[in-house]
């Protein structure tokens, strides 16, 4: 385990809704420089978990600490300085330029009108550079492909200048090349900027290869650890019903069972 | 098809009309009848054939060509069988329902007000004679004109309902008619000539077998009117400029140049500023054009429903800029009300053009009628 103090730590957390418990007794820590993938089948509660982490959904029990402060006590404005989001199914205005969209990430720091200071402009420029989309800064969101749009949204999260970025299925709707590209990009970000990146994904094979930590959600149970530990503990073998998909330790990947 | 349909109907209507002209009804069975003398009114005619009477009402609604034929028979009379009619009524009428306050003075003048058994919204009635009968519960209230209470009306079993309607195909009246109670339309409010409106007393005369009384009454009014009008033609040289109406929001509603009111103003020796317009109904003009034209008008009559200067000022300060307002030359008729709030003018004026004319002469040329006391038009407070 990392000796450094975690950015975010989850203690005995129960997540869910008043009528429906999704998972209970979760204990996880998120550290600097770590790329963490949250994995589970559809409906397992990945989004509920991420929504609770980002403060959008109140927890049913337990506590989330961000830099030792209880998350649920913080106003949205404060949380916005620690955590930025990239959501699945993005909404946007067609007329919005990529630059303006990325600049919206500076909102926690701008004045009451949202005017950009010189510092804000630099941060936006840096985010565009990191994602390598400076060339399309003045194109409109309505004109971008899905992959380009996803990059722009990641740049926006970077511009928000938080130690932690949470992404909800950022590789949805992308082709294999762009999926790999986004994973590599996120990996690069954790290494170069020191940020902690948490993403929900269905791309198990990519996650096993590139992520530092995995959080598996399986039928209300949560198991966290590095890919290596999880493989050793044979946790991955139980993730899917074995009649259809099996995990192969040698290749660190899942295979469809052939009859 | 939908576009053609109204057109076809129009052709049909026109052809019907021509047919009527070429072959007057009843000509075969009763070639000779006693035609009622109607001098000014355009909306009705009546012929007494001895065995029956035919009362015709044309254009009881604006923009309609329809003519209604009513067959009136006394008990025991056997009219020829080949008559086309819309309604058949037994006369003289013993029980009647009328729907406009303008019908009431005629009933009173003919001394048949006792036959009135029902009226929509009794509060509008101001005449003391009829109010007395209302107090005695002899007249049933039938709610509002647009929503006459059919059950109450039918239970009264009137011989006829005198209807008036702004539009053709009034459902209330067709329901009454379908239930077996004859509906006779009255178009007095559609007459453009002051004497024409008053002449509708003869319409009631026919139904009560009181043609002579109606004629006599009408002649008296006519003589009064003519003699008042004669005052003007002899002695008046300077005619005051006259404005009428008022604004609702920023649109000014005022009587057209060929309207009933415009004729009164002309006959009373006033120079109505809109006398050269062609409308028979009302004009709706922008504030600024009225202001430009009529700011200096000497006299302002009938400013909508206003009864005081204060009220007008509160409604719009533009009114205060008119000379007539500054000089307090404003005369309205809505202040004269019956005990239950009905405006007397609406009820009585159509029947008494002589009084309206004298009121206006008194306003325009007070010296001509020094001893006369105004009935309807009073100076605003």
């Amino acid at each position, binding site marked *: 385990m990392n000796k450094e103090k975690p950015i975010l730590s989850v203690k005995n957390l129960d997540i869910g809704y008043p009528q429906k418990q999704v998972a209970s007794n979760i204990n996880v820590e998120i550290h600097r420089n770590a790329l963490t993938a949250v994995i589970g089948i559809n409906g397992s509660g990945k989004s509920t978990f991420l929504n609770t982490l980002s403060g959008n959904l109140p927890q049913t029990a337990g506590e989330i600490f961000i830099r030792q402060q209880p998350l649920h006590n913080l106003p949205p404005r*404060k*949380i916005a300085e620690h955590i930025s989001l990239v959501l699945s199914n993005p*909404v946007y*205005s*067609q*007329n919005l330029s990529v630059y*303006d969209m990325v600049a919206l990430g500076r909102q*926690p720091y701008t004045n009451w*009108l949202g005017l950009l200071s010189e510092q804000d402009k630099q941060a936006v420029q840096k985010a565009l550079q990191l994602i390598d989309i400076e060339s399309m800064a003045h194109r409109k969101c309505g004109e971008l492909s899905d992959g380009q749009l996803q990059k722009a949204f990641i740049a926006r999260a970077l511009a928000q200048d938080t130690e932690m970025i949470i992404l909800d299925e950022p590789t949805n709707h992308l082709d294999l090349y762009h999926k790999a590209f986004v994973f590599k990009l996120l990996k690069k970000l954790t290494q170069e900027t020191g940020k902690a990146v948490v993403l929900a994904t269905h791309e198990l094979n990519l996650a096993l290869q590139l992520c530092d930590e995995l959080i598996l959600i399986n039928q209300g149970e949560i198991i966290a650890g590095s890919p290596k530990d999880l493989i050793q503990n044979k946790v991955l073998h139980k993730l899917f019903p074995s009649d259809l998909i099996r995990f192969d330790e040698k290749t660190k990947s899942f295979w469809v069972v052939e009859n | 098809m939908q576009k053609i349909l109204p057109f076809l109907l129009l052709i049909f209507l026109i052809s019907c009309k021509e047919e009527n002209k070429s072959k007057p009804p009843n000509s075969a069975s009763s070639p000779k009848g006693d035609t009622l003398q109607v001098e000014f009114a355009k909306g009705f005619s009546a012929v007494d054939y001895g065995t029956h009477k035919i009362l015709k009402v044309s254009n009881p609604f604006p923009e309609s060509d329809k003519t209604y034929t009513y067959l009136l028979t006394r008990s025991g009379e056997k009219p020829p069988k080949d008559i086309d009619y819309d309604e058949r009524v037994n006369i003289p009428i013993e029980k009647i329902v009328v729907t406009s306050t303008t019908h009431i003075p005629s009933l009173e003048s003919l001394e048949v007000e006792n036959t009135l058994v029902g009226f929509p919204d009794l509060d509008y009635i101001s005449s003391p004679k009829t109010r007395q009968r209302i107090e005695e519960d002899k007249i049933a209230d039938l709610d509002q004109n647009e929503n006459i209470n059919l059950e109450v009306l039918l239970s009264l079993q009137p011989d006829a309902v005198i209807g008036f309607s702004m539009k053709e195909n009034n459902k209330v009246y067709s329901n009454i008619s379908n239930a077996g109670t004859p509906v006779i339309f009255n178009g007095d409010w559609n007459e453009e000539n002051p004497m024409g409106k008053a002449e509708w007393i003869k319409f009631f005369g026919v139904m009560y077998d009181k043609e002579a009384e109606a004629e006599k009454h009408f002649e008296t009014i006519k003589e009064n009117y003519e003699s008042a009008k004669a005052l003007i033609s002899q002695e008046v040289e300077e005619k005051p400029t006259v404005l009428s109406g008022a604004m609702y*929001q920023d649109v000014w509603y005022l009587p057209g140049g060929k309207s009933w009111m415009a004729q009164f103003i002309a006959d009373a020796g006033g120079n109505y500023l809109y006398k050269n317009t062609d409308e028979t109904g009302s004009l709706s003009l922008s504030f600024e054009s009225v202001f430009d034209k009529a700011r200096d008008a000497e006299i302002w009559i009938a400013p909508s429903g206003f009864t005081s200067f204060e009220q007008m000022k509160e409604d719009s300060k533009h009114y205060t800029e008119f000379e007539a307002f500054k000089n307090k030359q404003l005369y309205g008729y809505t202040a004269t009300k019956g005990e239950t709030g009905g405006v007397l003018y609406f009820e009585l004026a159509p029947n008494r053009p002589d009084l309206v004319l004298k009121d206006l002469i008194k306003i325009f040329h007070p010296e001509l009628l020094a001893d006369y006391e105004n009935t309807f038009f009073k100076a605003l407070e």
Partner: protein
Amino acid sequence: MSAKKIRIYFGISLLFLLCFFLLNISLGSVQIPFSQTLKSLFGQLTENQAHAYIIKHYRLPKAITSILVGSGLAVSGLLMQTLFRNPLAGPYVLGLSSGASLGVALVIMGGSLFGITAFFLSSWGVIFAASIGSFLVMLAVIAASFRMKNTMAILIIGIMFAALTGAIVNVLSYFSPSEQLQRYVFWSFGSLGNLSTQELSILGLFWLLGMILAVFSLKTLNALLLGENYAQSMGASIKTNRLLVIVATSLLAGSITAFAGPIAFVGLAVPHLVRLVIPVSNHLILMPAVLIAGAILMLICDVIAQLPGSELTLPINAVTSIFGAPIVIWLLMRKKKLVF
């Protein structure tokens, strides 16, 4: 768009606004020479007193009303469209105009039912009734907004209020004598030209309050372009902002409806027109652009309604829709898509 280009756009549109303002004042039923119009405006003596009065006390207040009404409705439309992320939203989706209509209908047509006194039949009475009506609907919507997590649900509630109040108005009209019904119908046609100085200053005050609140909501409205979840993740307080926008819209649209009647179309269409003409979505630029465009559009509509040179006028509510709707349809057909 570069900052320089935006400045040029605003310069030009302000110039347009001034031109249409003067055009509006110089045209009307009565033909008044332009030189005399200017003289009257600047308080110099003119030969024709009646003309001077018309310019100063009728057309000038009417032109100012047009500007307040057009800009106020257009800005509330913009706020509503962004708040609800719905291109069909307008200032009246919250049921404000239906509330106002119900108030006015009760006063005009329900007079006999409730024994309403003469005060309520005066012009102040109608304004009072309209304000109370829209205010009560606003309170109901705000109450709903505190209970609802979903902004769309508020939109539906507003529409339900509109249906409900519309039905009550229908029942009232069904039972009303034709003269009262006509008065109500005339009110619903809208009117810009019957505001006294006093009324105009009250409208101006509400307009100013509404606009100030609107300015405070701009930052969050920009965040809302990415949806409520993103807005919240960027530190925006969704509920506070929702309240701010609802109150601003109510102040603007409510007071305008009270003083000028339920004027259709402008609030819905102007934001779309502006988005089609200048491709920005930053509300710091959109709001002033929509404000100016709304004012210009209303000034033009009023000129058309006055039918210059004729003594007749058209109801303003008909003009805004008859002349405005084809323009929006034409622009949409030409661009082949709705930019939102």
